[in-house]
């Protein structure tokens, strides 16, 4: 059963995220959406299969229910989850490649998140040159975060994606008597879009429900005639759940449009950064502190501390 089920968020986790986090809800949503887009863009540039990138999206969403989004730079978390899921699949990524890709995507030369201007930004290689020192620092942050993320998820990195199930269901439904490629693509588009949704659909619903909702929406889009009965029950989804997911999946596009218009300065000028969010919070007169949990930890152990730790380990080993 593990291949088609996921662990789901608890009420408590969602409650804490939505009400106790110092970060206002709309900013949380914007950060979530932007970071998931960044992961997707990096996955494409790294030529990772969508299965690995989508798993990274889900792992990141789960992690942010344990640690506050403000605890680390958003792009670092994105890079670390992608590094982790690529490694666990059969397409490992060199840390070097990940660092290069993220440096490019975060640079002004990247067309990602440059909505207002329709022209692609000028390509300036010096803007995304990664110095050796910057590479080492980035690499260190990825490794530290990787450990932090798997620790926060109690080392459970399993993610079941709805995509294969959706195809199986489509086969069972004879591809809704539509051209296979057309309807399958639409279904997969809905599933991939849902990954970006700040409604955390992948954390609250099992893959079978996501697959059925995507098929329902796709059927409407392509004008396919569906059976007159409650066909979704065949796939163990009830009408309530289906309706909610369909609304959730279809509403994302409108939400993103609204975001682009409303939240100026956050989306639209490159990737959202922690600094940008903090500035926005100050502008709104909100405290940046996050219950003692928001201050960034020191990036590196200083040399002396590392030495002391090594000594401690030696002593411990001898004592054992």
């Amino acid at each position, binding site marked *: *059963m*593990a*291949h088609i*089920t996921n*662990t*789901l*968020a*608890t009420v408590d*986790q*969602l*409650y804490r995220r*939505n*009400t106790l986090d110092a970060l*206002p*809800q*709309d900013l949380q949503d914007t950060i979530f959406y932007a970071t998931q887009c960044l992961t997707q863009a990096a996955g494409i540039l790294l030529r990772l299969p969508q299965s690995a990138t989508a798993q990274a999206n889900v792992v990141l969403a789960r992690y942010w*229910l*344990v640690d506050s989004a403000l*605890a680390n730079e958003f792009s670092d978390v994105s890079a670390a989850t992608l*590094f*982790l899921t690529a*490694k*666990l699949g059969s397409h*490992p990524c060199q840390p070097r490649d990940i660092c290069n890709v993220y440096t490019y995507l975060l640079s002004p030369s990247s067309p990602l998140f440059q909505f207002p201007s329709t022209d692609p930004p000028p390509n300036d290689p010096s803007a995304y040159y990664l110095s050796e020192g910057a590479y080492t620092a980035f690499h260190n942050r*990825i*490794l*530290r975060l990787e*450990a932090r993320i*798997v*620790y926060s*998820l*109690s*080392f*459970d*990195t*399993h993610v079941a994606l709805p995509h294969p199930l959706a195809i199986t269901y489509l086969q069972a439904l004879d591809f809704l008597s539509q051209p296979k490629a057309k309807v399958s693509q639409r279904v997969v588009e809905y599933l991939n879009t849902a990954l970006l949704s700040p409604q*955390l659909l992948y954390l*609250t*619903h*099992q893959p079978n429900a996501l697959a059925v909702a995507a098929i329902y929406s796709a059927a*409407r889009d392509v004008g396919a005639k569906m*059976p*007159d*009965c*409650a066909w979704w*029950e065949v796939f*163990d*989804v*009830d*009408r*309530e759940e*289906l*309706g*909610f997911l369909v*609304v959730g999946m279809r*509403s994302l596009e*409108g939400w993103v449009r609204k975001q682009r218009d409303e939240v100026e300065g956050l989306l639209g000028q490159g990737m959202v950064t922690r600094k940008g969010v903090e500035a926005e919070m100050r502008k709104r007169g909100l405290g940046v502190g996050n219950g003692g949990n928001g201050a*960034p*930890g020191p990036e590196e*152990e200083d040399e002396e501390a590392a030495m002391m730790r090594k000594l401690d380990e030696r002593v411990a080993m001898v004592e054992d």
Partner: protein
Amino acid sequence: MASKSRWADTEEDAALEAKIKREKEEKKRLKAEKARKAAEKAQAEEAARQRTLQAQQHEEDLDADRPSKRRKLTPEHDHDPLKPTSQSQGGDSGKLLRFEAGSWGPARSVENYDKLNDIEEGAYGWVARAKEIQTGKVVALKRLKLDDSPSNRVGLPETGLREIQILKDCSHRNIVSLHEVVVNDGASDSRSRKIESIFLVLEFVEHDLKSILEDMSEPFLASEVKTLLRQLGEGVAYLHDNWILHRDLKTSNLLLNNRGQLKIADFGMARYVGDPAPPKLTQLVVTLWYRSPELLLGAKTYGNAVDMWSIGCIFGELLAREPLLQGKNEVDELTQIFELCGIPTDESWPSFRRLPNARSLRVPKGSSAATGSVIRARFPLLTAAGTALLNGLLSLDPDKRPSAREMLRHEYFVQDPKPKHEAMFPTFPSKAGQERRRRRETPNAPGRGQKAAELGSVDFSGIFAGREREEKGGGFTLRML
């Protein structure tokens, strides 16, 4: 019946009323919580509350109280929610399968356990017997090796992460169970502290088969071998059914408890595979003595049959009380395999010529009597059915080896003597429970990142020297192109 959709409906919905009544208590509790929340966060944004409630609703799978919340969730922009069909009372008509789902949260600290004694310390980690302080439960703690040297900056070992994932997904009586994963104390205190050690909390099993075989004065009875082999087969069948290749089956990775239960352990080499198997699987898997000929000949795509070969080796080891094929290196291992199982021919293994290391393999063109299998002669006490099974498991051609399920249906397990009941299994003094274990002299599983051995230009035409005296054969040499 083009009525409005359910989440846009009103409270009058009759079926809903019934449900509300049914789940009145649930609802009351929910409302109390809602009220508390409202007090706590009066100014909470509408959207935030909506989402919490929605998720809560989903989580608790409450059908009651839905309409009002759903109404709020309907987004502002216009698109029709789904149009209901003739069936409008979702949930009332059929039983829907609900999926059990766990949750996630930070790992606990190893400080929850008291170390009792070391069990073993090998190339692949350290294992200790420990007691969970809170419950007094005795467990085995296995530390994952973390290589954090500057030359090896790849983060957490994927083998360790895969082992954890696979064990978490497995639940079978013949597979060692993973209770949880814990980390060194202090990892949770602050973000600056690094995670220095990761421990797998495993079910404690008293013995491993390797030490039992080494220490026992009398070999296992035929009925006992059957019990062990059948349990091994059941565990491996479960793994293969779940798309898991173990890739390091050997007697030291098979544990035995005092109730005669065999448990497969050490999934450091294991991985999920699909059908067809993913390309570019590493050939450097399985401890040398248990490694199948196709792996030794450099096959890049392989499947369940590599585990079946290992089972064959273990079967032989259970009978002989010592490892069956103790090659000193890859070439020697292959030599021993060919000595035992015969030389591959176009009939016995049609596709072996296509394997990377086999292209230049010259085999003697002798009769099959000279180059065939000598398994029958090597195990004279084994019944005909047992020999047939062992021969099948040790087929050179991976396609000819039985699957784990086929193996379990083999006549060998039906014939007398019947497999001994587990409860009747003899017990042994537990080394793991009391004292440090003797160091094993088995070679270790290959390390990741090592280069797969190229068989090189070793000449081993002398393998069949003994037989060649009786009948002329060309001998064979292996050279790299």
